[in-house]
Protein backbone atom coordinates (compact mmCIF):
# COMPACT_ATOMS: atom_id res chain seq x y z
CA UNK A 1 0.00 0.00 0.00
CA UNK A 2 2.78 2.33 1.03
CA UNK A 3 4.59 1.51 -2.19
CA UNK A 4 1.65 2.61 -4.31
CA UNK A 5 1.33 5.87 -2.43
CA UNK A 6 5.03 6.46 -2.95
CA UNK A 7 4.77 5.70 -6.66
CA UNK A 8 1.81 8.05 -6.99
CA UNK A 9 3.76 10.82 -5.35
CA UNK A 10 6.69 10.21 -7.66
CA UNK A 11 4.42 10.51 -10.68
CA UNK A 12 3.09 13.77 -9.24
CA UNK A 13 -0.43 12.60 -9.82
CA UNK A 14 -1.99 15.53 -7.98
CA UNK A 15 -0.22 18.14 -10.10
CA UNK A 16 -0.86 16.18 -13.28
CA UNK A 17 -4.58 15.90 -12.62
CA UNK A 18 -4.86 19.60 -11.84
CA UNK A 19 -2.99 20.40 -15.04
CA UNK A 20 -5.16 18.07 -17.11
CA UNK A 21 -8.28 19.83 -15.80
CA UNK A 22 -6.77 23.23 -16.54
CA UNK A 23 -5.64 22.27 -20.03
CA UNK A 24 -9.08 20.80 -20.77
CA UNK A 25 -10.66 24.09 -19.66
CA UNK A 26 -8.18 26.02 -21.78
CA UNK A 27 -8.75 23.98 -24.93
CA UNK A 28 -12.50 23.36 -24.80
CA UNK A 29 -13.70 26.59 -26.47
CA UNK A 30 -11.25 26.13 -29.35
CA UNK A 31 -12.12 22.46 -29.82
CA UNK A 32 -15.82 23.34 -29.87
CA UNK A 33 -15.44 25.82 -32.69
CA UNK A 34 -13.07 23.50 -34.59
CA UNK A 35 -15.58 20.65 -34.49
CA UNK A 36 -18.38 22.96 -35.57
CA UNK A 37 -16.34 24.17 -38.53
CA UNK A 38 -16.09 20.57 -39.75
CA UNK A 39 -19.82 19.71 -39.60
CA UNK A 40 -22.62 20.38 -42.08
CA UNK A 41 -24.68 23.35 -41.07
CA UNK A 42 -27.99 21.49 -40.98
CA UNK A 43 -26.55 19.02 -38.47
CA UNK A 44 -24.63 21.50 -36.33
CA UNK A 45 -27.76 23.56 -35.76
CA UNK A 46 -29.69 20.75 -34.17
CA UNK A 47 -26.91 18.77 -32.54
CA UNK A 48 -24.29 20.51 -30.41
CA UNK A 49 -20.60 19.89 -31.07
CA UNK A 50 -19.99 17.70 -28.00
CA UNK A 51 -22.41 15.14 -29.43
CA UNK A 52 -20.11 14.86 -32.43
CA UNK A 53 -17.16 14.47 -30.11
CA UNK A 54 -18.89 11.65 -28.21
CA UNK A 55 -19.99 9.91 -31.40
CA UNK A 56 -17.43 10.82 -34.07
CA UNK A 57 -18.32 7.98 -36.43
CA UNK A 58 -22.09 8.33 -36.31
CA UNK A 59 -22.11 12.01 -37.29
CA UNK A 60 -21.54 13.74 -40.62
CA UNK A 61 -18.30 15.59 -41.34
CA UNK A 62 -17.59 18.01 -44.18
CA UNK A 63 -15.08 20.58 -45.41
CA UNK A 64 -17.83 22.64 -47.09
CA UNK A 65 -17.45 25.53 -44.68
CA UNK A 66 -13.75 25.79 -45.50
CA UNK A 67 -14.53 25.85 -49.21
CA UNK A 68 -17.23 28.47 -48.70
CA UNK A 69 -15.01 30.55 -46.54
CA UNK A 70 -12.08 30.46 -48.95
CA UNK A 71 -14.28 31.24 -51.94
CA UNK A 72 -16.10 33.93 -49.96
CA UNK A 73 -12.99 36.10 -49.64
CA UNK A 74 -10.80 34.31 -47.12
CA UNK A 75 -8.33 33.22 -49.82
CA UNK A 76 -7.67 36.71 -51.16
CA UNK A 77 -7.52 37.93 -47.56
CA UNK A 78 -4.89 35.33 -46.83
CA UNK A 79 -2.77 36.78 -49.62
CA UNK A 80 -3.39 40.33 -48.42
CA UNK A 81 -2.43 39.35 -44.89
CA UNK A 82 0.84 37.86 -46.10
CA UNK A 83 1.54 40.97 -48.19
CA UNK A 84 0.98 43.15 -45.12
CA UNK A 85 2.77 40.94 -42.60
CA UNK A 86 6.01 39.96 -44.31
CA UNK A 87 7.32 43.47 -45.07
CA UNK A 88 5.84 44.78 -41.81
CA UNK A 89 8.11 42.26 -40.10
CA UNK A 90 11.28 42.70 -42.16
CA UNK A 91 11.26 46.49 -42.54
CA UNK A 92 11.00 47.45 -38.86
CA UNK A 93 13.65 44.88 -37.96
CA UNK A 94 16.04 46.30 -40.53
CA UNK A 95 15.42 49.87 -39.42
CA UNK A 96 15.55 48.95 -35.74
CA UNK A 97 18.75 46.92 -36.12
CA UNK A 98 20.46 49.93 -37.68
CA UNK A 99 19.26 52.19 -34.89
CA UNK A 100 20.14 49.68 -32.17
CA UNK A 101 23.65 49.49 -33.64
CA UNK A 102 24.01 53.26 -33.30
CA UNK A 103 22.70 53.13 -29.73
CA UNK A 104 25.08 50.32 -28.77
CA UNK A 105 28.37 51.07 -30.51
CA UNK A 106 28.45 54.68 -31.65
CA UNK A 107 28.94 57.80 -29.57
CA UNK A 108 26.71 60.81 -30.05
CA UNK A 109 25.17 63.65 -28.11
CA UNK A 110 21.80 63.09 -26.46
CA UNK A 111 22.00 59.30 -26.69
CA UNK A 112 20.57 58.73 -23.20
CA UNK A 113 17.77 61.20 -23.83
CA UNK A 114 16.77 59.57 -27.13
CA UNK A 115 16.85 56.16 -25.54
CA UNK A 116 14.70 57.21 -22.58
CA UNK A 117 12.20 58.69 -25.04
CA UNK A 118 12.00 55.35 -26.83
CA UNK A 119 11.43 53.46 -23.61
CA UNK A 120 8.66 55.87 -22.67
CA UNK A 121 7.03 55.43 -26.07
CA UNK A 122 6.81 51.67 -25.55
CA UNK A 123 3.63 52.02 -23.50
CA UNK A 124 1.83 54.65 -25.59
CA UNK A 125 -1.36 53.22 -27.12
CA UNK A 126 -1.45 53.12 -30.92
CA UNK A 127 -4.80 54.92 -30.89
CA UNK A 128 -3.11 58.11 -29.71
CA UNK A 129 -1.55 58.79 -33.08
CA UNK A 130 -3.70 57.05 -35.65
CA UNK A 131 -6.13 59.88 -36.50
CA UNK A 132 -3.40 62.44 -37.27
CA UNK A 133 -1.44 59.84 -39.26
CA UNK A 134 -4.52 58.98 -41.28
CA UNK A 135 -5.28 62.64 -41.95
CA UNK A 136 -1.63 63.23 -42.82
CA UNK A 137 -1.78 60.50 -45.43
CA UNK A 138 -4.97 61.92 -46.90
CA UNK A 139 -3.25 65.32 -47.05
CA UNK A 140 -0.25 63.80 -48.89
CA UNK A 141 -2.66 62.22 -51.32
CA UNK A 142 -4.37 65.55 -52.05
CA UNK A 143 -1.18 67.59 -52.23
CA UNK A 144 1.24 65.26 -54.02
CA UNK A 145 -1.23 62.84 -55.58
CA UNK A 146 0.46 59.87 -53.91
CA UNK A 147 -2.02 57.22 -52.85
CA UNK A 148 -1.11 55.88 -49.39
CA UNK A 149 -4.33 54.93 -47.63
CA UNK A 150 -5.84 51.69 -48.87
CA UNK A 151 -2.40 50.35 -49.84
CA UNK A 152 -0.06 47.91 -48.15
CA UNK A 153 2.61 50.60 -47.91
CA UNK A 154 0.71 52.66 -45.36
CA UNK A 155 0.24 49.60 -43.13
CA UNK A 156 3.95 48.76 -43.42
CA UNK A 157 4.92 52.28 -42.39
CA UNK A 158 2.56 52.43 -39.43
CA UNK A 159 3.42 48.94 -38.20
CA UNK A 160 7.13 49.70 -38.60
CA UNK A 161 6.84 52.89 -36.59
CA UNK A 162 4.93 51.24 -33.76
CA UNK A 163 7.40 48.37 -33.63
CA UNK A 164 10.37 50.76 -33.36
CA UNK A 165 10.57 51.40 -29.59
CA UNK A 166 10.37 47.76 -28.53
CA UNK A 167 12.48 46.48 -31.44
CA UNK A 168 15.30 48.96 -30.85
CA UNK A 169 15.16 48.28 -27.13
CA UNK A 170 15.38 44.47 -27.38
CA UNK A 171 17.97 44.49 -30.16
CA UNK A 172 20.14 46.97 -28.29
CA UNK A 173 19.95 44.81 -25.17
CA UNK A 174 21.20 41.89 -27.21
CA UNK A 175 23.92 43.83 -29.03
CA UNK A 176 25.30 45.00 -25.69
CA UNK A 177 26.21 41.38 -24.95
CA UNK A 178 28.33 41.08 -28.12
CA UNK A 179 32.11 41.11 -27.60
CA UNK A 180 33.23 44.68 -28.17
CA UNK A 181 36.83 43.56 -28.80
CA UNK A 182 35.77 41.99 -32.10
CA UNK A 183 34.31 45.27 -33.28
CA UNK A 184 37.36 47.21 -32.14
CA UNK A 185 39.58 44.79 -34.03
CA UNK A 186 37.55 45.27 -37.21
CA UNK A 187 37.84 49.03 -36.77
CA UNK A 188 41.60 48.78 -36.46
CA UNK A 189 41.65 46.75 -39.68
CA UNK A 190 40.03 49.74 -41.36
CA UNK A 191 36.44 48.51 -41.67
CA UNK A 192 33.83 51.26 -41.86
CA UNK A 193 30.88 51.36 -39.46
CA UNK A 194 28.70 50.31 -42.37
CA UNK A 195 30.81 47.20 -43.02
CA UNK A 196 30.99 46.35 -39.33
CA UNK A 197 27.22 46.51 -39.09
CA UNK A 198 26.37 44.34 -42.11
CA UNK A 199 29.25 41.87 -41.87
CA UNK A 200 29.70 41.54 -38.14
CA UNK A 201 26.96 42.89 -35.91
CA UNK A 202 23.91 41.92 -37.98
CA UNK A 203 24.87 38.23 -38.42
CA UNK A 204 25.86 37.97 -34.77
CA UNK A 205 22.50 39.41 -33.71
CA UNK A 206 20.59 36.74 -35.63
CA UNK A 207 19.10 35.03 -32.52
CA UNK A 208 17.62 38.27 -31.19
CA UNK A 209 16.42 39.30 -34.64
CA UNK A 210 14.77 35.90 -35.16
CA UNK A 211 12.87 35.99 -31.91
CA UNK A 212 11.72 39.56 -32.40
CA UNK A 213 10.72 38.73 -35.98
CA UNK A 214 8.40 36.00 -34.74
CA UNK A 215 6.71 38.37 -32.33
CA UNK A 216 6.36 41.13 -34.86
CA UNK A 217 4.99 38.69 -37.45
CA UNK A 218 2.37 37.29 -35.08
CA UNK A 219 1.51 40.80 -33.94
CA UNK A 220 0.97 42.12 -37.46
CA UNK A 221 -0.78 38.97 -38.64
CA UNK A 222 -3.25 39.21 -35.77
CA UNK A 223 -3.72 42.98 -35.88
CA UNK A 224 -7.11 44.32 -36.77
CA UNK A 225 -7.08 48.06 -36.12
CA UNK A 226 -4.17 49.22 -38.29
CA UNK A 227 -5.19 46.97 -41.18
CA UNK A 228 -8.76 48.22 -40.89
CA UNK A 229 -7.79 51.90 -40.92
CA UNK A 230 -4.95 51.92 -43.42
CA UNK A 231 -5.66 49.01 -45.76
CA UNK A 232 -9.40 48.77 -45.31
CA UNK A 233 -11.79 46.95 -47.55
CA UNK A 234 -10.01 46.93 -50.91
CA UNK A 235 -7.21 44.68 -49.69
CA UNK A 236 -8.94 43.35 -46.60
CA UNK A 237 -6.85 41.19 -44.29
CA UNK A 238 -8.15 38.10 -42.51
CA UNK A 239 -9.03 39.71 -39.20
CA UNK A 240 -11.15 42.16 -41.19
CA UNK A 241 -12.97 39.38 -43.06
CA UNK A 242 -13.40 37.41 -39.89
CA UNK A 243 -15.02 40.27 -38.05
CA UNK A 244 -17.37 40.79 -40.99
CA UNK A 245 -18.30 37.08 -40.91
CA UNK A 246 -18.74 37.21 -37.14
CA UNK A 247 -21.34 39.92 -37.65
CA UNK A 248 -23.32 37.45 -39.76
CA UNK A 249 -23.24 34.41 -37.50
CA UNK A 250 -27.01 34.47 -37.54
CA UNK A 251 -26.62 32.66 -40.85
CA UNK A 252 -24.80 29.83 -39.15
CA UNK A 253 -21.48 29.51 -37.38
CA UNK A 254 -19.85 27.31 -40.01
CA UNK A 255 -18.30 29.97 -42.21
CA UNK A 256 -16.96 32.13 -39.43
CA UNK A 257 -15.67 29.02 -37.64
CA UNK A 258 -13.86 27.79 -40.75
CA UNK A 259 -12.59 31.32 -41.40
CA UNK A 260 -11.13 31.48 -37.89
CA UNK A 261 -9.17 28.30 -38.38
CA UNK A 262 -7.95 29.35 -41.81
CA UNK A 263 -6.62 32.54 -40.20
CA UNK A 264 -4.97 30.45 -37.48
CA UNK A 265 -3.08 27.98 -39.67
CA UNK A 266 0.00 30.09 -40.28
CA UNK A 267 0.30 31.58 -36.76
CA UNK A 268 -0.06 28.09 -35.29
CA UNK A 269 2.59 26.64 -37.60
CA UNK A 270 4.89 29.51 -36.64
CA UNK A 271 4.02 28.99 -33.00
CA UNK A 272 4.61 25.27 -32.78
CA UNK A 273 7.72 25.17 -34.94
CA UNK A 274 9.39 28.20 -33.36
CA UNK A 275 8.12 27.97 -29.79
CA UNK A 276 11.65 27.86 -28.43
CA UNK A 277 12.43 31.24 -30.00
CA UNK A 278 9.15 32.65 -28.72
CA UNK A 279 9.98 31.65 -25.17
CA UNK A 280 13.46 33.12 -25.54
CA UNK A 281 11.97 36.33 -26.91
CA UNK A 282 9.50 36.62 -24.05
CA UNK A 283 12.29 36.22 -21.55
CA UNK A 284 14.28 38.94 -23.31
CA UNK A 285 11.34 41.26 -22.79
CA UNK A 286 9.96 41.46 -26.32
CA UNK A 287 6.27 41.59 -25.59
CA UNK A 288 3.97 44.29 -26.76
CA UNK A 289 1.75 45.87 -24.16
Amino acid at each position, binding site marked *: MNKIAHLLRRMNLGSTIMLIILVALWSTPTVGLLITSLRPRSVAE*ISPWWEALLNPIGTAWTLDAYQNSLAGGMLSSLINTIAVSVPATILPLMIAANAAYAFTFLKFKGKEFFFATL*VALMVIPVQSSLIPVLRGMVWIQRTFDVQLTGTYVSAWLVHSAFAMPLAIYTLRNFMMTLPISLIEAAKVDGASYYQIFWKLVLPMSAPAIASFAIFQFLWVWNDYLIAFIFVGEQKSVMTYQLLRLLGQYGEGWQDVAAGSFIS*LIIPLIVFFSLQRFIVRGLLAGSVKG
Partner: protein
Amino acid sequence: MSDIIFGLVSIVIGIAASYGLYWLLNFLLSLLPERISRNAAWLAFLTPAAVLVILVLIVPLLQTVVWSFMDDRVKAWVGFKNYVDLFTDKRFLGILLNNFLWVLVVPAITVAIGTAVATLTNQVGPTRERIFKSLIFMPMAISFVAAATIWSYFYSYVPPGRPEVGLLNALVKLSGFEAQPWLTMDQGRLNSFLLMAVVVWLQVGYSMVVISAAIKNVPEETIEAAQLDGASAWQVFAGVVLPQVWGTVMSVFVTVLILVMKVFDIVLSMTRGNFTTSVLAFEWYKQFFENSNIGPASAVVTVLVLLIGPLMYLQIKTVQQQEALR
Protein backbone atom coordinates in the same frame (compact mmCIF):
# COMPACT_ATOMS: atom_id res chain seq x y z
CA MET B 1 -3.21 35.35 -59.45
CA SER B 2 -2.51 39.00 -60.20
CA ASP B 3 -3.01 39.64 -56.49
CA ILE B 4 -0.22 37.24 -55.62
CA ILE B 5 2.16 38.81 -58.13
CA PHE B 6 1.28 42.30 -56.97
CA GLY B 7 1.85 41.26 -53.38
CA LEU B 8 5.20 39.64 -54.12
CA VAL B 9 6.40 42.57 -56.18
CA SER B 10 5.49 45.08 -53.51
CA ILE B 11 7.24 42.99 -50.87
CA VAL B 12 10.45 42.88 -52.91
CA ILE B 13 10.34 46.56 -53.84
CA GLY B 14 9.61 47.62 -50.29
CA ILE B 15 12.53 45.73 -48.85
CA ALA B 16 14.96 46.62 -51.62
CA ALA B 17 14.07 50.30 -51.26
CA SER B 18 14.80 50.34 -47.55
CA TYR B 19 18.10 48.52 -48.03
CA GLY B 20 18.93 51.03 -50.75
CA LEU B 21 18.16 53.86 -48.34
CA TYR B 22 20.81 52.76 -45.85
CA TRP B 23 23.30 52.19 -48.63
CA LEU B 24 22.63 55.68 -49.96
CA LEU B 25 22.94 57.33 -46.56
CA ASN B 26 26.27 55.66 -45.97
CA PHE B 27 27.43 56.48 -49.48
CA LEU B 28 26.62 60.16 -48.95
CA LEU B 29 28.46 60.05 -45.68
CA SER B 30 31.55 58.51 -47.28
CA LEU B 31 31.77 61.48 -49.65
CA LEU B 32 32.52 63.70 -46.66
CA PRO B 33 36.05 64.02 -45.29
CA GLU B 34 37.09 61.04 -43.16
CA ARG B 35 37.14 62.93 -39.85
CA ILE B 36 33.60 64.25 -40.24
CA SER B 37 32.12 61.03 -41.62
CA ARG B 38 33.45 59.01 -38.64
CA ASN B 39 31.78 61.35 -36.18
CA ALA B 40 28.54 61.62 -38.11
CA ALA B 41 28.16 57.89 -38.81
CA TRP B 42 25.43 57.54 -36.20
CA LEU B 43 23.22 59.81 -38.32
CA ALA B 44 23.13 57.30 -41.17
CA PHE B 45 22.06 54.49 -38.85
CA LEU B 46 19.63 56.43 -36.73
CA THR B 47 17.91 58.79 -39.18
CA PRO B 48 15.37 56.39 -40.75
CA ALA B 49 14.22 55.15 -37.33
CA ALA B 50 14.11 58.69 -35.95
CA VAL B 51 12.11 60.00 -38.91
CA LEU B 52 9.62 57.17 -38.58
CA VAL B 53 9.21 57.58 -34.83
CA ILE B 54 8.90 61.36 -35.04
CA LEU B 55 6.49 61.43 -37.98
CA VAL B 56 4.26 58.50 -37.04
CA LEU B 57 4.45 58.49 -33.22
CA ILE B 58 5.58 61.71 -31.59
CA VAL B 59 4.15 64.45 -33.81
CA PRO B 60 0.76 62.71 -34.19
CA LEU B 61 0.62 62.13 -30.43
CA LEU B 62 1.11 65.87 -29.84
CA GLN B 63 -1.38 66.63 -32.61
CA THR B 64 -3.95 64.43 -30.87
CA VAL B 65 -3.49 66.35 -27.63
CA VAL B 66 -3.94 69.65 -29.49
CA TRP B 67 -7.04 68.38 -31.32
CA SER B 68 -8.61 67.33 -28.06
CA PHE B 69 -9.19 71.04 -27.47
CA MET B 70 -10.96 71.49 -30.81
CA ASP B 71 -14.42 70.73 -32.19
CA ASP B 72 -15.69 67.71 -34.14
CA ARG B 73 -14.14 68.78 -37.44
CA VAL B 74 -11.04 70.35 -35.84
CA LYS B 75 -11.99 73.74 -37.27
CA ALA B 76 -12.45 75.78 -34.09
CA TRP B 77 -11.02 75.87 -30.56
CA VAL B 78 -13.42 74.80 -27.84
CA GLY B 79 -11.15 74.92 -24.76
CA PHE B 80 -11.88 72.19 -22.26
CA LYS B 81 -15.38 71.55 -23.61
CA ASN B 82 -14.63 68.01 -24.82
CA TYR B 83 -13.25 67.06 -21.42
CA VAL B 84 -16.13 68.68 -19.57
CA ASP B 85 -18.57 66.84 -21.82
CA LEU B 86 -16.85 63.54 -21.16
CA PHE B 87 -16.67 63.85 -17.41
CA THR B 88 -20.27 65.02 -17.07
CA ASP B 89 -21.52 62.16 -19.25
CA LYS B 90 -22.76 59.24 -17.18
CA ARG B 91 -22.00 56.84 -19.99
CA PHE B 92 -18.34 57.94 -20.11
CA LEU B 93 -18.03 57.52 -16.34
CA GLY B 94 -19.35 54.00 -16.87
CA ILE B 95 -16.60 53.46 -19.45
CA LEU B 96 -13.98 54.61 -16.96
CA LEU B 97 -15.46 52.21 -14.42
CA ASN B 98 -15.12 49.40 -16.98
CA ASN B 99 -11.47 50.22 -17.59
CA PHE B 100 -10.95 50.28 -13.85
CA LEU B 101 -12.57 46.84 -13.48
CA TRP B 102 -10.44 45.42 -16.30
CA VAL B 103 -7.30 46.72 -14.62
CA LEU B 104 -8.42 45.42 -11.25
CA VAL B 105 -9.32 41.92 -12.42
CA VAL B 106 -7.32 40.80 -15.44
CA PRO B 107 -3.65 41.38 -14.45
CA ALA B 108 -4.10 39.83 -10.99
CA ILE B 109 -5.90 36.72 -12.25
CA THR B 110 -3.53 36.31 -15.20
CA VAL B 111 -0.50 36.45 -12.93
CA ALA B 112 -2.10 34.14 -10.34
CA ILE B 113 -3.02 31.43 -12.87
CA GLY B 114 0.32 31.86 -14.63
CA THR B 115 2.19 31.34 -11.34
CA ALA B 116 0.06 28.32 -10.50
CA VAL B 117 0.63 26.68 -13.88
CA ALA B 118 4.35 27.48 -13.75
CA THR B 119 4.61 25.88 -10.31
CA LEU B 120 2.59 22.80 -11.25
CA THR B 121 4.38 22.18 -14.55
CA ASN B 122 7.68 22.40 -12.72
CA GLN B 123 6.78 19.22 -10.82
CA VAL B 124 5.64 16.81 -13.51
CA GLY B 125 8.79 16.01 -15.48
CA PRO B 126 9.99 17.42 -18.82
CA THR B 127 7.66 15.61 -21.26
CA ARG B 128 4.41 16.42 -19.51
CA GLU B 129 5.71 19.89 -18.74
CA ARG B 130 6.28 20.57 -22.43
CA ILE B 131 2.86 19.31 -23.51
CA PHE B 132 0.90 21.14 -20.82
CA LYS B 133 2.81 24.35 -21.37
CA SER B 134 2.29 24.25 -25.14
CA LEU B 135 -1.45 23.86 -24.75
CA ILE B 136 -1.79 26.68 -22.22
CA PHE B 137 0.54 28.85 -24.28
CA MET B 138 -1.19 28.21 -27.63
CA PRO B 139 -3.74 31.11 -27.45
CA MET B 140 -0.71 33.42 -27.66
CA ALA B 141 -0.68 32.78 -31.43
CA ILE B 142 -4.40 33.56 -31.82
CA SER B 143 -5.68 36.96 -32.89
CA PHE B 144 -8.10 38.83 -30.66
CA VAL B 145 -10.71 38.54 -33.40
CA ALA B 146 -10.32 34.75 -33.69
CA ALA B 147 -10.38 34.47 -29.90
CA ALA B 148 -13.56 36.51 -29.89
CA THR B 149 -15.10 34.09 -32.41
CA ILE B 150 -14.11 31.08 -30.32
CA TRP B 151 -15.57 32.56 -27.16
CA SER B 152 -18.66 34.08 -28.76
CA TYR B 153 -19.52 30.54 -29.77
CA PHE B 154 -18.83 29.29 -26.25
CA TYR B 155 -21.17 31.98 -24.81
CA SER B 156 -23.69 31.77 -27.65
CA TYR B 157 -27.41 31.85 -27.01
CA VAL B 158 -30.20 30.47 -29.15
CA PRO B 159 -33.86 31.43 -28.75
CA PRO B 160 -35.89 29.08 -26.51
CA GLY B 161 -37.13 25.92 -28.17
CA ARG B 162 -34.02 25.28 -30.25
CA PRO B 163 -31.14 23.09 -29.10
CA GLU B 164 -28.27 24.88 -27.40
CA VAL B 165 -24.99 24.97 -29.30
CA GLY B 166 -23.08 27.10 -26.78
CA LEU B 167 -21.40 25.06 -24.08
CA LEU B 168 -21.98 27.58 -21.32
CA ASN B 169 -25.73 27.61 -21.79
CA ALA B 170 -25.82 23.84 -22.16
CA LEU B 171 -24.09 23.52 -18.79
CA VAL B 172 -26.43 26.08 -17.26
CA LYS B 173 -29.44 24.13 -18.51
CA LEU B 174 -27.94 20.89 -17.26
CA SER B 175 -27.80 22.44 -13.80
CA GLY B 176 -31.50 23.18 -14.07
CA PHE B 177 -31.42 26.91 -14.88
CA GLU B 178 -32.61 28.91 -17.88
CA ALA B 179 -30.26 29.65 -20.77
CA GLN B 180 -29.17 33.30 -20.84
CA PRO B 181 -28.01 35.74 -23.54
CA TRP B 182 -24.79 36.22 -21.57
CA LEU B 183 -23.08 38.92 -23.61
CA THR B 184 -26.07 41.27 -23.35
CA MET B 185 -26.36 41.00 -19.57
CA ASP B 186 -24.80 44.01 -17.90
CA GLN B 187 -26.17 43.43 -14.39
CA GLY B 188 -23.12 43.83 -12.14
CA ARG B 189 -21.07 44.19 -15.37
CA LEU B 190 -21.47 40.44 -15.88
CA ASN B 191 -20.80 40.64 -19.62
CA SER B 192 -17.64 42.71 -19.09
CA PHE B 193 -16.33 39.96 -16.82
CA LEU B 194 -17.05 37.42 -19.53
CA LEU B 195 -14.94 39.49 -21.95
CA MET B 196 -12.18 39.68 -19.35
CA ALA B 197 -12.11 35.87 -19.22
CA VAL B 198 -11.12 35.87 -22.89
CA VAL B 199 -8.17 38.18 -22.30
CA VAL B 200 -7.07 36.12 -19.29
CA TRP B 201 -7.27 33.05 -21.53
CA LEU B 202 -5.03 34.78 -24.08
CA GLN B 203 -2.46 36.14 -21.62
CA VAL B 204 -1.92 33.35 -19.10
CA GLY B 205 0.55 31.64 -21.46
CA TYR B 206 2.80 34.67 -21.45
CA SER B 207 2.74 35.02 -17.69
CA MET B 208 3.33 31.28 -17.25
CA VAL B 209 6.39 31.22 -19.53
CA VAL B 210 8.11 34.17 -17.90
CA ILE B 211 7.31 33.15 -14.31
CA SER B 212 8.27 29.55 -15.03
CA ALA B 213 11.74 30.66 -16.15
CA ALA B 214 12.11 32.63 -12.92
CA ILE B 215 11.03 29.62 -10.84
CA LYS B 216 13.62 27.45 -12.56
CA ASN B 217 16.27 29.99 -11.55
CA VAL B 218 15.49 29.63 -7.85
CA PRO B 219 18.53 27.90 -6.29
CA GLU B 220 17.82 24.28 -5.32
CA GLU B 221 19.67 24.70 -1.99
CA THR B 222 17.17 27.22 -0.66
CA ILE B 223 14.28 24.84 -1.37
CA GLU B 224 16.08 21.80 0.04
CA ALA B 225 17.02 23.69 3.20
CA ALA B 226 13.38 24.57 3.80
CA GLN B 227 12.30 20.97 3.13
CA LEU B 228 14.88 19.70 5.64
CA ASP B 229 13.39 22.07 8.21
CA GLY B 230 10.09 20.28 7.63
CA ALA B 231 8.29 22.93 5.61
CA SER B 232 5.19 21.78 3.69
CA ALA B 233 4.93 22.16 -0.10
CA TRP B 234 2.82 25.28 0.36
CA GLN B 235 5.27 26.74 2.88
CA VAL B 236 8.16 26.15 0.49
CA PHE B 237 6.24 27.88 -2.28
CA ALA B 238 5.03 30.86 -0.24
CA GLY B 239 8.11 31.28 1.93
CA VAL B 240 10.99 30.38 -0.38
CA VAL B 241 10.00 30.36 -4.06
CA LEU B 242 7.51 33.23 -4.26
CA PRO B 243 9.74 35.87 -2.60
CA GLN B 244 12.54 35.02 -5.03
CA VAL B 245 10.36 35.35 -8.14
CA TRP B 246 8.34 38.31 -6.88
CA GLY B 247 10.21 40.81 -9.07
CA THR B 248 9.37 38.83 -12.19
CA VAL B 249 5.75 38.41 -11.12
CA MET B 250 5.45 42.17 -10.71
CA SER B 251 7.00 42.91 -14.09
CA VAL B 252 4.54 40.51 -15.77
CA PHE B 253 1.76 42.20 -13.82
CA VAL B 254 2.77 45.62 -15.17
CA THR B 255 3.03 44.35 -18.75
CA VAL B 256 -0.45 42.80 -18.61
CA LEU B 257 -1.76 45.94 -16.89
CA ILE B 258 -0.55 48.12 -19.75
CA LEU B 259 -2.08 45.74 -22.29
CA VAL B 260 -5.39 45.71 -20.48
CA MET B 261 -5.55 49.51 -20.31
CA LYS B 262 -5.59 49.50 -24.11
CA VAL B 263 -8.04 46.60 -24.51
CA PHE B 264 -10.00 47.13 -27.69
CA ASP B 265 -10.35 44.29 -30.22
CA ILE B 266 -12.15 41.94 -27.86
CA VAL B 267 -14.79 44.55 -27.04
CA LEU B 268 -15.20 45.46 -30.70
CA SER B 269 -15.57 41.86 -31.87
CA MET B 270 -17.75 40.48 -29.11
CA THR B 271 -20.21 43.24 -28.21
CA ARG B 272 -19.30 46.25 -30.38
CA GLY B 273 -19.20 48.16 -27.11
CA ASN B 274 -22.92 47.65 -26.57
CA PHE B 275 -24.58 46.57 -23.33
CA THR B 276 -22.29 48.81 -21.21
CA THR B 277 -19.12 46.94 -22.15
CA SER B 278 -17.37 49.90 -23.78
CA VAL B 279 -13.84 50.87 -22.70
CA LEU B 280 -11.68 53.93 -23.44
CA ALA B 281 -9.95 52.52 -26.53
CA PHE B 282 -13.29 51.42 -27.95
CA GLU B 283 -14.92 54.75 -27.19
CA TRP B 284 -12.14 56.42 -29.21
CA TYR B 285 -12.95 54.11 -32.14
CA LYS B 286 -16.65 54.82 -31.87
CA GLN B 287 -16.24 58.61 -31.64
CA PHE B 288 -13.99 58.64 -34.67
CA PHE B 289 -15.29 55.95 -37.03
CA GLU B 290 -18.98 56.01 -36.23
CA ASN B 291 -19.50 59.67 -35.35
CA SER B 292 -16.50 61.34 -37.09
CA ASN B 293 -16.00 63.46 -33.98
CA ILE B 294 -12.29 64.16 -34.11
CA GLY B 295 -12.11 66.55 -31.15
CA PRO B 296 -13.97 64.31 -28.70
CA ALA B 297 -12.19 61.18 -29.99
CA SER B 298 -8.86 62.91 -29.36
CA ALA B 299 -9.98 63.86 -25.85
CA VAL B 300 -10.90 60.24 -25.09
CA VAL B 301 -7.53 58.94 -26.20
CA THR B 302 -5.73 61.74 -24.36
CA VAL B 303 -7.45 60.61 -21.16
CA LEU B 304 -6.18 57.10 -21.92
CA VAL B 305 -2.62 58.36 -22.44
CA LEU B 306 -2.79 60.34 -19.18
CA LEU B 307 -3.93 57.25 -17.31
CA ILE B 308 -1.10 55.20 -18.83
CA GLY B 309 1.41 57.98 -18.07
CA PRO B 310 2.27 56.78 -14.56
CA LEU B 311 2.90 53.31 -16.00
CA MET B 312 5.41 54.88 -18.35
CA TYR B 313 7.31 55.99 -15.28
CA LEU B 314 7.23 52.42 -13.93
CA GLN B 315 8.52 51.18 -17.28
CA ILE B 316 11.48 53.59 -17.24
CA LYS B 317 12.25 52.63 -13.63
CA THR B 318 12.33 48.92 -14.52
CA VAL B 319 14.60 49.60 -17.48
CA GLN B 320 16.94 51.66 -15.30
CA GLN B 321 17.10 48.83 -12.77
CA GLN B 322 17.95 46.36 -15.50
CA GLU B 323 20.62 48.73 -16.83
CA ALA B 324 22.14 49.00 -13.36
CA LEU B 325 22.37 45.20 -13.17
CA ARG B 326 24.23 44.98 -16.45
